[in-house]
């Protein structure tokens, strides 16, 4: 029993040592993805596709102000946000919209780079657009 207790305590200390000597996550990687202008689609379509794209790729999705068209998705590790993607929709002309993508990830915590994350979100947005319009392009 004595040795079991010692083993328990020693194991706990080893686990703690591993935790407190984990690599620091000290760097942000941020990119602005491709901006696109869609001339003949309503603004609401952009919001719907942004929501869908982020929901496909990220753990949680929020619109920063209902009806704003400014959407963001967050992936967390251990409860701490480590990857964020932002999709902004803006009215463009009388019937279209512009959409832009911004991504930021914490390195080396995140498996993806910011560029890779934005590529996924843009692909999901594009796929959503293609599915909605029946075409392969925005």
């Amino acid at each position, binding site marked *: 029993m004595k040795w079991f207790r010692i083993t328990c305590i020693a*194991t706990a200390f080893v686990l703690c*040592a591993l935790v407190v000597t984990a*690599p620091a996550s000290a760097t942000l990687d941020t990119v*602005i993805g491709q901006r696109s202008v869609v001339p003949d689609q309503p603004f609401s379509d952009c919001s719907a596709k942004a929501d869908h794209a982020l929901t496909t790729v990220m753990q949680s999705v929020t619109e920063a102000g209902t009806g704003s068209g400014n959407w963001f998705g967050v992936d967390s590790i251990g409860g701490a946000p480590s990857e964020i993607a932002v999709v902004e929709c803006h*009215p463009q002309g009388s019937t279209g919209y512009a959409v832009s993508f911004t991504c930021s990830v*914490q390195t080396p915590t995140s498996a993806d780079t910011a560029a890779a994350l934005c590529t996924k979100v843009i692909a999901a947005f594009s796929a959503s657009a293609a599915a909605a319009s029946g075409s392969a392009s925005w």
Partner: protein
Amino acid sequence: MVVQRSHLFAAALGIAILITGSLAPAAVDLSTGLRYVIPTGTLDECNAKAKTALDTYLQNATESSPNDWLATGPLVQVGQPDTTASATAHCYAYGSGYVVTFTCFVETPNNPYDASALCTDVGHNFNGGVQTALATPTPMPTGCTTANLIGTWQNDNDSKLTLKLDPDGGLTDSEDVVGSWVLNGDKAIITYYGNHNMTLSADGKHLSGGGYSFTRKC
């Protein structure tokens, strides 16, 4: 008294965490949604003001694509050479004017301010609003003291190994591996790939024991 094995392990783990110090996970803080509608103006004007606003609070604002601006920082990097903050500005044509939007990312707790504070200042710089000076990191104390272990420590046996011990009881080596430190009198516990019981010299300059020997740069 009967103690279940799982309870014993949990208790030991909890005590060990308290002794060795816990690591607050770093996180990305976001601020997005700040936008201004400028009824009359050009995209060139928007771009110029966006660059100025970003460069005021961060570094190297660049137009990554037409009308899209990105800057990284922080502007003041005391003992923190990495990128821990960034901000973007997007300019969109809108009627006879334009719309500008700002998004900020700040890594916490490695910055003394959050993303909202950064974006508010960048936005206010753009539109001429009131700006509040962002908090700056506390400079690392210099000099040797027996009151704490804050400072940069050089391994006496390995010139490549340097530890930076911070005022919050944390330490970071040259490869961004982190640990912690505790000082009680002249006895120190350094948690760095395990716990090391060490002794601080009377002049506050040397730390030895537990298989390590360090000299403070002071």
